[in-house]
């Protein structure tokens, strides 16, 4: 417990009183006044601290609100985006087969159209070629000789050959074809035969188990096969 001494001389200040030995006595009033002042100061200080704390808290709350707002907004945007994406994906998943089948149908019909067109073009070209060649065959008998020569070349290793032609062809070009056969080299049997099975436009060569059909129809059929084969998946 603190001991407070009171200066008897009431006109002196407490500091002077402290300096004067033996002149003090206990003064409860002063003590109480001092305590009150200190209490007041404490209260003031506490009030200031509370005000400052409130201000700080308000500031933090405002800052947190701002940050929370931004984060919340970003999270909301993300969520919305995800939901939109999920919605679009679901919708796409539902609609995609429809789109795909539509595009496939379009592609298939386009492909079919082009294939048909191509077939028509090839058939038309071959029909035109047939008419031109038939007309030329009448004027240029050497075409038939060329075909015969090609057939003889293809059968160059055969020992026995029989050239089969239509009777009309034999009547018209028999001499030339006979001469051609005579020039084919060393063979066991070489002869020419007439048959109505062979068309007028063309020749057929039979040899040692094989045959070379150089009729116009067969040549055009081969051409058709070769042209159509260019796009197929088979060799």
């Amino acid at each position: 417990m603190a001991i407070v001494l009171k200066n008897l001389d009431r006109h002196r200040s407490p500091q002077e009183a402290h300096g004067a030995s033996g002149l003090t006595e206990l003064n409860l009033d002063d003590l109480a006044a001092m305590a009150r002042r200190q209490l007041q100061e404490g209260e003031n200080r506490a009030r200031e601290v509370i005000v400052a704390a409130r201000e700080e808290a308000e500031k933090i709350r405002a800052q947190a609100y701002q940050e929370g707002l931004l984060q919340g907004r970003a999270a909301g945007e993300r969520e919305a985006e995800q939901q939109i994406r999920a919605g679009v994906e679901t919708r796409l998943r539902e609609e995609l087969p429809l789109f795909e089948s539509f595009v496939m149908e379009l592609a298939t019909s386009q492909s079919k159209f082009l294939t048909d067109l191509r077939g028509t073009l090839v058939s038309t070209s071959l029909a035109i070629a047939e008419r031109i060649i038939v007309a030329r065959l009448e004027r240029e008998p050497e075409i038939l000789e060329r075909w015969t020569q090609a057939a003889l070349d293809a059968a160059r290793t055969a020992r026995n050959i029989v050239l089969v032609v239509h009777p009309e062809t034999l009547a018209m070009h028999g001499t030339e074809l006979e001469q051609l056969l005579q020039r084919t080299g060393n063979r066991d049997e070489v002869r020419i035969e007439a048959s109505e099975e062979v068309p007028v436009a063309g020749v057929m060569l039979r040899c040692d188990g094989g045959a070379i059909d150089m009729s116009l129809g067969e040549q055009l059929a081969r051409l058709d096969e070769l042209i159509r084969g260019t796009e197929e998946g088979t060799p």
Partner: protein
Amino acid sequence: MSQSSGLAKRFADLASPPELPSIGSLQSAIESGPAGRITGRIAAITGTAVEVEGLCAPLGSLCRIRTASHQEAMAKTIGFRHQRSILAMLDDVSSLAPGDAVQWIADGITVGIGPGMLGRVLDALGRPIDHLEAPRGLVKVRVDRQPPSSLDRPPIRQPMGTGVRVLDAMLPCGVGQRLGIFAGSGVGKSSLLGMLTRGCTADAIVIALVGERGREVREFMDEALGKEGLRRAVLVVATSDQPATMRLQAAWTATAIAESLRDAGKNVLLMIDSVTRFALAQRELGLAAGEPPTTRGYPPSVFALLPRLVERAGRTEKGSITAFYSVLVEGDDTNEPIADALRGLLDGHIVLSRKLASQAHWPAVDVLQSLSRLQPLLVSAEQLEATNKVRRWLAEYEANAELVEIGAYRPGSNPELDRALQLRPAIRRFLTQDTKQRYSLDETQKLLARLAAGQIEGMV
């Protein structure tokens, strides 16, 4: 690629109009076959050789056989005996008989080729076997094309990243280089090929599986390639049960596909697994056609075909074919005739060692036995020096391995060997990797430089 652009591409693929064949391909198609119908008949069948009389089709011609039971099968002319043509079957047919009609179809075999083939699995004649619809927009080309002229081949100077550290560091492969992978059975040849397909930086990959077991094909597709790998690959398959002509044809067809992609400006990786089975198929056909057997029963035509096959790969002004040919060496004898011939024809050889495989050293590349002939032209002087350093350490250890293993070597007596012993674990770690791991060329080169400088801390 974003989802939307992926979708757009998918629709674009679906909606792409079918391409009409060019005038050039029509013209070559018209010229490829005889003008009329030329037919003969089967006179005799000896083993795999079908003798035909009355038909004089040139060598390599494609013929169609029609049996009495109305079955049709394709065959190829492989030789002549007196006046008869000898054919080898391309298709399996059960009821061939003398007298069956044979028609000459074309001078040679053609296959349809185009970008639509990527991602597809085909047979040796280019027909899809993956149960999907036929690829569209293909143009037929002959498979027996000539290799590019020597003067049309620019020098190879650019290294190709394979993703495999031991190759990129010790045996670098150039864009357009041709290398052989020499291995006995079961030493990781297929695994290495799988690593190459996944790790290489090529635009497109063409793989011929020649004479493989049926099981291995699916495994290779699923394990080695995977869905991503298959998307940029074309697989040509002729399994061991197929006729020799088909096994032979698979290599030619794959090469022709690779050539067409190269001509379209792509850098292509071509892998033929295995070229030994290609040679065995030709041996079968050559002997059936009456050729005399020479070394180990191989007829001379085998040794004539090998350069024709490998010379078609390489670099041109348009693009490149970087090729890996796997060579199955019998009894680990890398000097057997096919391996020997190929070593001389190729631009390098990668030898897989059974000893390394038994030590779980994967990939089991025996660096000291392997060689990339173009290495000095592909890497910098510093990298070459680093490679040589590591090679010297490997060689030093190899030469003294027995002494070290029995404890007869006293450290300090050979400083170079001491260094090799000190770095051995790090070198081993550097030269091995898991089949799923891939390393970029840059990463590998940096690690090699560190290893050569003896900086082995953290080396993985």
